[in-house]
């Protein structure tokens, strides 16, 4: 099957490439996952290219050219908001905020969760018990309430939201990582590694982390979906940056300025639909990844 390999490094890279290729093939057979990935790719590309494709000045309230709350027309395909700005433009730019916050908060959350999860499972003893109680405590706490509390006391802005969401959503990842680490560490090859003389660093680095990473990856995509909903909720509730246009703040304005009662559906639908599409895409990708990386779940998911 394999061509003769010249060096140990080549062997390692070859098997890594083969593993990734195999994961991709299985992932590609999952229609939901592919659709989700497709949508995500399009959205991310559009969001990144927004400054190039569109004119940011259209977001400036003072430069708005349309009339307030006009229904969709040729010039404004999605109508205008209460200040006369193009809803389409705002939805476009809102994507950037949502994606930025979503990703950053997720990175923070997954980092904290993975470190605590691995530590709780690997070291055992009182440290493990302490970390476990700590995790359980934060897991049960109503996260949005906590996030609201944090957002209220910290200066308003994007970084506050990122911090609030990141700090409140790590427990799920931590539990997942802990459970997976415990499973891996109960396998005989860990004992073999210890018998060969491996210490903590070796075992965690060479066996635990590579074993845990795939599931963390799948979980991460689901966490991003969560974080985006959390961000939009917090923005909606008014704790975001008032100057930034985000989907949550658009909807908040819709409520407070009576766009709702005036039946301005063009203002209401796009931000919400955008959230649904993004989160659903992340969910589909996440579930597809989970099925691929954890074959045991194939029966439960499909």
């Amino acid at each position, binding site marked *: 099957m394999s061509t003769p390999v010249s060096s140990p490094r080549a062997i390692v890279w070859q098997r890594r490439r083969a593993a990734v290729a195999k994961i991709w093939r299985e992932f590609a057979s999952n229609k939901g996952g592919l659709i989700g990935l497709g949508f995500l790719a399009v959205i991310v590309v559009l969001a990144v290219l927004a400054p190039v494709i569109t004119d940011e000045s259209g977001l400036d309230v003072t430069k708005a050219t349309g009339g307030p709350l006009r229904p969709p027309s040729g010039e404004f395909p999605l109508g205008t908001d209460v200040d006369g700005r193009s809803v389409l433009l705002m939805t476009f730019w809102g994507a950037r905020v949502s994606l930025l916050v979503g990703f950053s908060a997720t990175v923070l959350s997954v980092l904290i969760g993975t470190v605590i999860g691995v530590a709780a499972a690997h070291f055992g003893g009182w440290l493990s018990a302490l970390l476990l*109680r700590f995790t*359980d405590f934060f897991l*049960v*706490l*109503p*996260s*949005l*309430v*906590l*996030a*609201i*509390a*944090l*957002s209220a*006391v*910290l200066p308003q802005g994007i970084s506050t939201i990122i911090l609030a969401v990141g700090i*409140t*959503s790590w427990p*799920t*990842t931590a*539990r*997942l990582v802990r*459970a*997976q680490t415990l499973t891996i560490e109960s396998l005989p090859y860990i004992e073999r590694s210890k018998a060969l003389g491996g210490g903590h660093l070796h075992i965690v680095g060479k066996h635990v982390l590579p074993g845990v990473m795939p599931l963390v990856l*799948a*979980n991460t995509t*689901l*966490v991003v*979906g*969560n974080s985006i*909903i*959390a961000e*939009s*909720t917090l923005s*909606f*509730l*008014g704790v975001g940056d008032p100057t930034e246009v985000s989907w*949550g703040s658009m*909807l908040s304005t819709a*409520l407070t300025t009576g766009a*709702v*009662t005036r*039946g301005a*559906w063009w203002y*209401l*639908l796009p*931000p*919400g639909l955008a*959230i*649904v599409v993004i*989160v*659903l895409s992340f*969910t*589909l990708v*996440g579930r597809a990844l*989970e099925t691929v990386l954890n074959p045991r*779940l194939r*029966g*439960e*998911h499909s």
Partner: protein
Amino acid sequence: MTDALSSTEAPSPLVDPDERRGGTGTTRFVLTKLAEALASLILVVILGFLLFRMIPGDPVLTMTRNRPTSPALLAELRARMGVDKPILTQFFDYVRGLLRGDMGTSYILQRPVADLIAERAWPTILLVGSATLLAVALGLWLGVRAAWKRGSFFDRAHTGIALTLWSVPQFWLGLLLLVASNGLFPSRGMHSPDAAPDFLSQTLDVAHHLVLPCVTLLVVFYAQYMLVMRSSLLGEMNSEYLTTARAKGLREDLVRRRHAVPNALLPTVTLVFLQFGMVVSGSVSVEAVFSWPGLGQLTYDALHGPDLPVLQGVFVVLAGAVVVMNLLAELLYRVLDPRVRAA
């Protein structure tokens, strides 16, 4: 803010069913769990203090950041809130106050926080309670049926719907329902001023107002319960003891009903309890959209101060309630699962 929908997450932090145990006795178990809950409550109290007195640096400045103030006003506020005392004294005052039922005074509404919370508690309980019950009933039933008919149109359709609904932000759904129902249901509040004063009319009136917020809240959670129940049952259906049951000559539906479903139900039910915190979180935005006069709306209004004493009080109460529910979940699980009971 709903939780990551990962099937690999162990639904219960309580017990590993494969672990062999020697008996520890029910009393010991209950006492241990009570002690743990107490410890969590203490942590909640400490966290409340930390968040609202220590993080903002100078809470008075944070509270008044959106309002015009004068140095005299600030000084008066500081004295009233006790912010000028040393931190430890503040903490003890705070704890003593909590034990007496005194949670400080609302800065914006100038009323005792405890009174405000007491007034708003019942509407939230009504909303959250009804939504949870309906979501559980609907979710579990649909989940079981979808798993039974796995792969069928029913299953695929409902799974698709559930996945989509789970991706919908609750507040947006509320807004949509508001626009769509277009006057069919009241759009704000809990009571109509013109309802007849007798009990039946009042109840019907409240129910009328309850429909939209309740539906908004339950839609997202039924989806989660349905997906978890479905995957739990699907996982259970591969168990070996089901082959034994079939070999004994049981009909397939009996095999599922008598053996698979009860076993799959256990972790799902405790998950419902554990997710209570999220339902409470969800109620904040739903109450905000519908101006439902509960704790969520109180929080929403307090956010725009920010009215720190109110936020602190609500935080402690909500978090404490969730800790209590978690305790009930652990005790319930022990009653339901004989493998834990023997321990």
